[in-house]
């Protein structure tokens, strides 16, 4: 039976009609749109149809027709959207009234991506304008770099996280929170927004709120289950390396170019049949010698070490939440389990996490007490170093292909005989380090109480804790690997405790007088942070099993080391906010921080900020405008500080250094053998306890003070056509003064004379744009495109001589006016094509035909350090991201990519692809190296010793990229169906792929442009299947 329906769509808030609202017959593509007065009419629909009324910013309603011919409907505004209230600095703020540069993260699309990595942080990559996240391939899901609006300082650039009001600088706390427990994430980008966090806000603040609010909907509980399985592979990120035969050809060419017969240096690995003529060399053939080092137990291999060292990894991630409550109470219980089997053999990561949030309302709701707790414990085994401390991811690239993985007798093979590097079989190294692990256990959270003293005056007190227990176990077994042996085994336990308490008290006062709204916040905060570590090791274990390696079982030398440090912060802050007629907005904040890191004279810092906003769309002249649905102009100015220096950086300090080598302070292979102690065998006993003294470790700077950042931000938020097109634009200028830095000093000053200084000033200008279009078409298709862009340019404006050495450049050619991330080096002009060209050129050490030609910038006829200049910057000009969402019926599809442009960098592959390292394998590029016959190439004439790899525009190249990071396809089972399954409210399946493909510039030689550290596990390509269930 067909019928016709008409009616009016209005807003329940003010009763005004809603023009352009969508009315759809459910399950069909039939529908219409309300007219200017909110009227609609739908002829010829089934009498049993359900109408779906939707309008941007309002809650969608479904009404059964039930034979009615007129349906008037008042839609409720969607607090999730228009009245979304978020926490930004000790107070709640309506999203539409925010006046700082704050990005509220859309959590919904993050779930799948964070499920596959186990880190919400990684899922934010490329999604928030001005937030730059670099992933790592570690199974822990740790990000390698997180930057908000580029970088303002040279030191620690990590943002401050404020989770349920408790600050932490440990990204793993945020990473461990399952997204289903997160209420909202705000990124405070500019100083006017973050200034309320004062001393630690210079790198931006990420404010996270977990779910802990009573909805006031009566008794209601819900359960959600998320489960995800991912498959990880690094095949696309591999470097193309030479096979056994090809390496022989490259070594022949390089040796001959150096004037040496390759049969001398590499005759044990290859049999080179060549004409012996260095002036016109010809290689007749090269063959691999049958045995490694002539050992008949070790037949030569043709090993692809990357293939052998990596395997397919799997991630299993599950979490369950139970949440809900009554009008008077709320609780959330979230349990998660993550396991990543690792793509590098014998690595892995496991994490158990639990969150309990709860609150109750007492005394007629006037008092509220509650708790937020996050508990997680994790266990990881990561990439291992070999006997000579070289990490296995690098060895998988560099080890010679002629070494097999196993010997004929089934042992792990290693280098034997001449011609090989003193590096180990990476598979073997991973295997013998399989008992190594790091355990972290964190308790994070707070207990809080709020009391309404008067109806408008609320007092809140909170005690927060951030506690981490760290325990690393490192077992070094004995090794017999080719010619490399380790005869003494060793166990090291490295443990530390980190505890930070935060005690916060605030008073909040809100007043409404007619059109005036006034908010006042006053607060204090005390933070106490302590860190204690103990490192113990023992040598000489009779039995090599994982169970036997305990310190008590050591029979040899034992050492113990340990440190203690800590800091204190004591702060007062206030905020005054004012709104007139919801149109004119203003706020003023001031924070005063006292830090134990600074001396009496500079102990306190004051950090003010002010903002103003104008919601133009609330003005009368725009009320009737159908095009502009939202328009707000914002402006703000703020000052923030940075105190990211050592806890005791201001002191001139001496310490007793009885035992340590330099590796204790600066971990590095050779530093293990570099004694920097004060003990000395004056008595000539050769053993036993030694006399010892004290040594300077840093020079004093009693005048050390806050690094200060002043930032001006103007912004525009806009929405057109019922917010179908929405976005925001921000422009900022940021001046940072007195950057805290510990510059290197001339050696002539002696030992331990470095000190922290307030040094350079920088100016950063930039803009961010986010622009989105979304619409649901009449045929039911939902389509959305959202883009974000961030662009920054920084330059050093002032550079005191005493900190110049911390930056590239020289006294004559200083970095002033350049980005602090500039690269200083030589300019090149292709390759020398002939001996004559070499002779005609300025004197250059090691110059040869086919070698890289450096430009004699100062034209003094000699290439030396005076010919260096600024080559570019490693910070991109532009970061951007684009996301496309499609929804149709029960299907949803999203594709997301992001990239950077306008920067230079080294891709490490160039050192293998364009140069031959004598003991390491090389990349395919060396087969196309310059020879007198092959001159149309940019790969220099091969050499084993004469490789011009110093900083130059040859090795620093444009490494912009665009990456397709994520594609996800989901399917929601129909509600009618799942409702029958125990009242299920949501059942969605999805599949996704991550890190799928990328585009790089033409002369980029490497694999993945984000693979900048060959000693780290590459970021894999990932495919996932997931399920979300809700009850």
């Amino acid at each position: 039976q067909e019928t016709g329906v008409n009616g009016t769509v209005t807003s329940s808030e003010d009763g005004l009609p809603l023009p352009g609202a969508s009315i759809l017959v459910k399950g069909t593509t039939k529908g219409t749109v309300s007219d200017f007065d909110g009227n609609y009419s739908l002829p010829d629909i089934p009498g049993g149809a359900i109408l779906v009324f939707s309008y941007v910013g309002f809650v969608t309603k479904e009404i059964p027709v039930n034979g009615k011919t007129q349906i008037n409907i008042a839609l409720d505004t969607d607090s999730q959207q228009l009245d979304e209230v978020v926490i930004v600095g000790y107070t709640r703020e309506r999203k539409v009234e925010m006046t700082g540069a704050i990005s509220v993260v859309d959590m919904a699309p993050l779930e799948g991506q964070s499920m596959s990595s186990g880190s919400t942080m990684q899922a934010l990559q490329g999604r928030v304008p001005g937030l730059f996240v670099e992933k790592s391939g570690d199974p822990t899901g740790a990000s390698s770099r997180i930057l908000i609006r580029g970088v303002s300082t040279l030191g620690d650039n990590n943002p401050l996280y404020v989770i349920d009001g408790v600050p932490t600088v440990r990204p793993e706390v945020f990473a461990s929170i399952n997204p289903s427990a997160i209420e909202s994430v705000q990124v405070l980008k500019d100083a006017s927004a973050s200034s309320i966090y004062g001393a630690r806000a210079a790198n931006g603040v990420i404010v996270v709120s977990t779910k802990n609010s009573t909805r006031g909907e009566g008794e209601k509980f819900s359960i959600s289950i998320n489960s995800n399985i991912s498959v990880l592979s690094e095949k696309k990120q591999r470097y193309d390396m030479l096979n056994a035969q090809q390496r022989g050809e490259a070594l022949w060419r390089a040796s001959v170019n150096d004037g040496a017969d390759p049969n001398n240096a590499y005759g044990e690995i290859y049999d080179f049949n060549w004409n012996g003529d260095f002036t016109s060399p010809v290689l007749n053939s090269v063959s691999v010698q049958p045995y490694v080092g002539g050992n008949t137990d070790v037949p030569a291999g043709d090993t692809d070490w990357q293939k052998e060292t990596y395997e397919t990894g799997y991630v299993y991630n599950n979490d369950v939440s139970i949440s809900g409550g009554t009008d008077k109470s709320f609780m959330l219980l979230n349990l998660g389990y993550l396991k990543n089997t690792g793509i590098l053999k014998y690595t892995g990561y496991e994490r158990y996490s639990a969150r309990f949030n709860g609150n109750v309302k007492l005394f007629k709701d006037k008092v509220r007490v509650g708790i937020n707790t996050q508990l997680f414990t994790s266990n990881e085994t990561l990439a291992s170093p070999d006997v000579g401390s070289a990490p296995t991811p690098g060895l998988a690239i560099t080890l010679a292909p002629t070494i097999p993985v196993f010997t004929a007798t089934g042992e792990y093979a290693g280098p034997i005989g001449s011609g090989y590097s003193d590096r180990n079989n990476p598979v073997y190294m991973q295997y013998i380090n399989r008992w190594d692990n790091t355990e972290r256990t964190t308790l994070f959270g707070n207990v809080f109480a709020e009391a309404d003293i008067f109806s408008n005056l609320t007092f809140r007190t909170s005690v927060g804790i951030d506690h981490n227990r760290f325990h690393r176990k490192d077992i070094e077994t004995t090794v017999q690997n080719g010619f490399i042996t380790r005869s003494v085994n060793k166990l090291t336990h490295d443990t530390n405790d980190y505890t930070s308490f935060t005690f916060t008290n605030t008073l909040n006062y809100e007043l409404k007088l007619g059109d005036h709204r006034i908010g006042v916040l006053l607060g204090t905060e005390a933070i106490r942070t302590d860190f204690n570590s103990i490192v113990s090791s023992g040598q000489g274990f009779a039995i090599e099993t994982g169970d036997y390696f305990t310190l008590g079982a050591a029979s040899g030398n034992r050492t113990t080391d340990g440190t203690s440090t800590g800091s204190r912060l004591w702060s007062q802050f206030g905020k005054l906010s004012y709104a007139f007629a919801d149109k004119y907005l203003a706020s003023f904040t001031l924070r005063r921080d006292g830090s134990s890191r600074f001396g009496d004279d500079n102990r306190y810092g004051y950090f003010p900020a002010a903002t103003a906003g104008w919601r133009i769309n609330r003005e009368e002249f725009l009320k009737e405008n159908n095009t502009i649905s939202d328009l707000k102009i914002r402006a703000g100015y703020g000052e923030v500080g940075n105190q990211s220096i050592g806890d005791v950086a201001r002191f001139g300090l001496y310490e007793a250094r009885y035992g340590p080598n330099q590796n204790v302070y600066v971990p590095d292979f050779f530093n293990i053998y570099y004694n920097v102690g004060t003990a000395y065998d004056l008595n000539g006993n050769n053993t036993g306890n030694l006399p010892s003294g004290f040594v300077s470790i840093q020079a004093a700077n009693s005048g050390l003070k806050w690094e200060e950042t002043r930032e001006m931000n103007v912004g525009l938020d806009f929405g057109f056509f019922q917010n179908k097109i929405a976005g925001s634009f921000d422009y900022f200028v940021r001046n940072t003064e007195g950057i805290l830095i510990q510059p290197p000093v001339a050696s002539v000053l002696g030992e331990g004379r470095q000190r922290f200084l307030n040094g350079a000033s920088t100016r950063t200008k930039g803009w961010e744009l986010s622009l989105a279009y979304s619409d649901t078409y009449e045929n039911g298709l939902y389509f959305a495109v959202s883009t974000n862009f961030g662009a920054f340019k920084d330059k050093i404006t002032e550079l005191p001589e005493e900190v110049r050495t911390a930056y590239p450049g020289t006294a004559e050619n200083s970095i002033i006016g350049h980005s602090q991330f500039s690269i200083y080096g030589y300019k090149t002009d292709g390759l020398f094509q002939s001996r004559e060209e070499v002779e005609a050129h300025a004197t250059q050490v090691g110059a040869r035909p086919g070698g890289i030609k450096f430009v004699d910038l100062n034209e003094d006829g000699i290439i030396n350090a005076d010919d260096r200049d600024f080559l570019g910057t490693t910070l991109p000009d532009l970061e951007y991201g684009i996301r496309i969402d499609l929804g149709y019926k029960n299907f949803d599809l999203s594709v997301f990519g992001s990239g950077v442009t306008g920067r230079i960098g080294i891709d490490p592959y160039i050192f293998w692809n364009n140069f031959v390292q004598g003991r390491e394998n090389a990349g395919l590029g060396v087969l196309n190296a310059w020879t007198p016959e092959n001159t149309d190439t940019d790969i220099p004439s091969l050499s084993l010793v004469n490789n011009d790899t110093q900083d130059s525009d040859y090795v620093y190249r444009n490494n912009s990229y665009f990456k397709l990071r994520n594609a996800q396809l989901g399917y929601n089972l129909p509600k009618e169906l799942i409702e029958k399954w125990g009242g299920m409210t949501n059942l969605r399946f999805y599949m996704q792929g991550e890190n799928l493909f990328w585009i790089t510039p033409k002369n980029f030689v490497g694999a993945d442009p984000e693979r900048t550290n060959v000693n780290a596990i590459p970021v894999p390509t990932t495919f996932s299947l997931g399920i979300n269930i809700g009850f």
Partner: protein
Amino acid sequence: KDFLEYDPKGQVPEEDIATAENAENLVTTAYAGIANDEMIGPLTHLWVYGSVRSDDAYKGGGGRSDVVVVDHYEQYNLTQADDGDQMIPRTWTNFYKAISRANFALSVIGELSEEEFPLKTTRMAELRFLRGHSHFMLKLLFKKIPYVTEGLSDEEILQISNDVDNEELWNRIAEDFLFAFENLPGTREQSGRADKSAAAAYMAKLRLYQAYEQDENHNVVNINPSRLEEVITYANEVSGSLEPDFANNFLDGHDNGPESIWAAQFSVNDGTEVGRASYVTGLNSPHGTSLYGCCGFHLPSQNMVNAFKTGADGLPLPDHFNASDMIDPEDFTSVDPRLDHTIGVPGRPFKYRNTVNEEGDMIYRTSWARDPGVYGFFGNMKEQQAPDCSCFVKEGPFIGTSKNIDFIRYADVLLFKAEALIQLGRYNEALPIINELRERAAASTARPIEAGASNIYNIEPYPSFSSKEEALKALKFERRLEFAMEGHRFFDLVRWGEAAAVLNAYLNEEKTKRDFLANARFTAGRDEYYPIPQREIDFTGGGLYKQNPGY
């Protein structure tokens, strides 16, 4: 307020250290400073700078690109001021660290009265000796260096140029040794400390270098006789004697013996992280035997091996030694016994031993060489100890030992004196000195023979010198054999003003045997000294330090 007070834990400010109670500790710290070296920034054993860069030795290791900067030094013409962080830049830094330790102790002790600190003068003399030592070593490497004394602020130190008159710089370094000489006791209260003999020996050494006066391009333009007289005077003040067996100088159990005039002390099992052992030659272990470790660096040149050849008269062959090569066992028929103390020769016992675990496993063999196609089959021996020595520690791939490293042996003092006598024309007085060393060498054959070495030794004293020139030639050759691969050779050649001539002649012959030297060339007026590390020039503003000529 109190809440914000947080004091450093386990670390203290300067005023808590600068006390009479801690004065002794600060002196210990300064001593430790001169031995705080590293494989890639040596202070104690200058095998890279004095041996590899001379005709004594090759870099070794796994081909030319292994620690490539040393290959650049070895090729001479690839040496650059801005060439990474390893070796020369670190050695510069480490010596200035040592100087700062001495200077801090000097400034603290200088403020104390004799009542507070009765050993004040002695300790100050020791500290000035240590400071002189570091400046001296730097001067050998760089010629022109900033000279730093105690009590200067950091700002003042950053005003000190290296562009000082050569003669003045020698004299300033000498002042420290003179003060030490005048104030140090004649006997050592502890064997690791410097005494009057050490100061006298250093004065002799310094005045000998100073006697050969150089112009701006490193040419020796004059030999100053009054400096030579001082060499003799101070050498005579040194009390010491030769070890009865040459081997003792390089064997555990003989540290601080009668021949050790001034040495860096090392120890193991001492509660430090990996032992306060000597790792400076850690790269230099024989590579192809599991008895040792990594990495086969610092290998004798064929020229060095040939130099041990003696004629039928038991005398060396300074003019003809290199006419034929000693490679295979049958080539070794008449040699100076010091060969078996210095060089691992295939078929001959290594480090005076025949057996550690299995019969004959200490007989040096060709398989011990890492990269024979490039660097030949010979090995270094003086800096090695037997694998079962209690002084021996294997840490990771490297080996450290508690064996001291002698900066000055009494044999060195004897030859300083002999050289001065010869240059003064008193070569007949030098004859018995040189012969004393040769007789000691002749008496040092028991250990190798007992370990199974065939007796191919033939060494005799010089009957006489017929001229100053002949004596000088004998002295130079004796120095080479006596101190072979101990890291002195290159500095001797530069002192004598013959680095370019000797080394280019060496390269011309050696490159026909070792093709990795095909493009090596020594440039006179440049390669006698290392470039001032570029970062030090950059860090001091660019104009303060004067770069050495040619770089």
